[in-house]
């Protein structure tokens, strides 16, 4: 049985990754799971300088999901390279560094700084809805996405994954723009912008007023978008949004995702990543699938 997948020339031992922001840089969950078993670890977003993030409360539970407005708190690229990259290098897994910024120059500074680091890929967060300094418009505007992707590709030494926001009218337009800018792969979806109100206190449930909704409740939206994007672009798609089980992950793969990421599920099941990976192997045995790649995008109409 062959669970390997290849994204932009980087071979992953299996298609299971962690979703950025839910797994730190692996240190905390490394106490629960063997990181060697993962296809890749995608780190929490890192910027050129430390970011303090938003005021608390930063999260709220929603029905079958949660909403967060962490505000991309991160220690900055210097500490990240000194501490987190060496930690992850101890494991036999691929390292994908998620990059965030307020402006193109900030992204480019991080991307350049990463060029000499022993990392496998980078994922560019142009879609986090929590910071007000204009990113929202950034990831939502096809022209800006193409331009930023091209700028990053010019300086990046590692393959570049653009992470797309679902908070747009037509995600395939943004996907095509990223592809036109030279993206090596696309990951989707980031969180859906939401709002929750505490009726007893008559106030917003999180300090930031709005937050990104994630978890099983949003999965059908994510599967639909992955299906649309996979049919609109040629580059590989990494699917995420409410994956907690192997069956969830397989929905994305059948819809066209080459790899998948487990996010919010880590919070309620620290072993979710491993269980997804093992469950996919079980499925392959049951369905007599030799190579995982045979499953990518083969969903068919009912009755066919």
């Amino acid at each position: 049985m062959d669970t390997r997948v290849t994204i932009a020339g980087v071979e992953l031992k299996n298609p299971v990754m962690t979703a950025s922001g839910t797994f730190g840089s692996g240190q905390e969950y490394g106490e629960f799971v063997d990181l060697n078993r993962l296809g890749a670890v995608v780190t929490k977003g890192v910027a050129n300088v430390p970011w303090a993030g938003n005021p608390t409360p930063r999260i709220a539970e929603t029905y079958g999901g949660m909403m967060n407005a962490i505000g991309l708190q991160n220690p900055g690229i210097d500490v990240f390279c000194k501490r987190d990259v060496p930690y992850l290098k101890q494991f036999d897994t691929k390292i994908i560094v998620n990059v965030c910024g307020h402006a193109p120059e900030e992204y480019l500074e991080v991307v350049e700084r990463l060029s000499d680091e022993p990392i496998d890929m980078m994922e560019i967060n142009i879609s986090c809805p929590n910071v007000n300094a204009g990113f929202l418009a950034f990831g939502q505007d096809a022209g800006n996405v193409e331009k930023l992707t091209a700028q990053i590709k010019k300086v990046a030494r590692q393959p570049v994954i653009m992470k797309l926001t679902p908070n747009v009218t037509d995600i395939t337009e943004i996907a095509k723009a990223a592809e036109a800018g030279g993206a090596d792969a696309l990951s989707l979806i980031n969180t859906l912008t939401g709002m929750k109100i505490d009726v007893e206190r008559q106030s917003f449930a999180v300090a930031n007023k709005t937050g990104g909704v994630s978890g099983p409740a949003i999965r059908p939206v994510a599967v639909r978008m992955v299906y649309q994007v996979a049919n609109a672009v040629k580059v590989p798609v990494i699917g995420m949004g409410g994956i907690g089980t192997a069956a969830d992950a397989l929905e994305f793969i059948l819809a066209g995702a080459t790899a998948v990421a487990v996010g919010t599920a880590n919070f309620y099941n620290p072993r979710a990543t491993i269980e997804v990976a093992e469950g996919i192997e079980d499925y392959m045995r049951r369905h007599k699938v030799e190579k995982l790649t045979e499953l990518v995008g083969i969903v068919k109409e009912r009755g066919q």
Partner: protein
Amino acid sequence: MSCKRKETAVIVSQECLLPGIFSMWLEAGEVAKEAVPGQFISMYANDRSKLLPRPISLCEIDKEKGFLRVVYRVTGKGTGTEQFSKMKAGDAMEIMGPLGNGFPLEAGKGKRALLIGGGIGVPPMLELAKQLDADKLLVMGYRDEQFLTKEFGQNGGLYLATEDGSAGTRGNVLDAIREHKLTADVIYACGPSPMLRAIKQYSEEKHIVCYVSMEERMACGVGACLACVCGSKEIDGHSNVHNKRVCKDGPVFLSTEVEI
């Protein structure tokens, strides 16, 4: 590598102490073996629409039997804590822990220690009172009706404060401390933010070493998601900003290292 994990605990008993306040004993051998006063566990609702664990502090730890006691407040209708309150002896519950750092016992050893609890911050002070080897003064504050007072009375000199004056000093825990002219070398405190803020100020004015147990809404409970941060006086070594993680770096902090 794999050393921590979620554990299926079994409920040994459940008791309603006061309207909305419940006491539950859990059989959780592995967690109980490791647990220290001031730590907490993540408790998971069986209802899968409620994804996130509820962080609940440990009230008592019985290592011999492998039991843990939690005393918790039901936060409203349809909440996870309401579901916990309806569970019965023999029911299974997923938990994770022990989480967080706990109270430093060495800091109070052989000294005069003031243990201060307020509201639903009262329960974690009980196991501390049992384990701390010190001259202990216990000051517990309640809105009106009191709970756990019998157990506290067996573990040190107990002073009460109630907002309605129904027992002890009318007012808050600091009013009780002033009324009885209580002094100490070290303070341990857990309670709502306004109480902790006042105790932080009080201890710093009086130059008393003070440990506070903080509360914040949590998601992962293990330090990965950065939801439950509190402000720190200095740039934190891990976050590299003025933030500390309540679940991982805390919940117990020296009062002088955090902003409340």
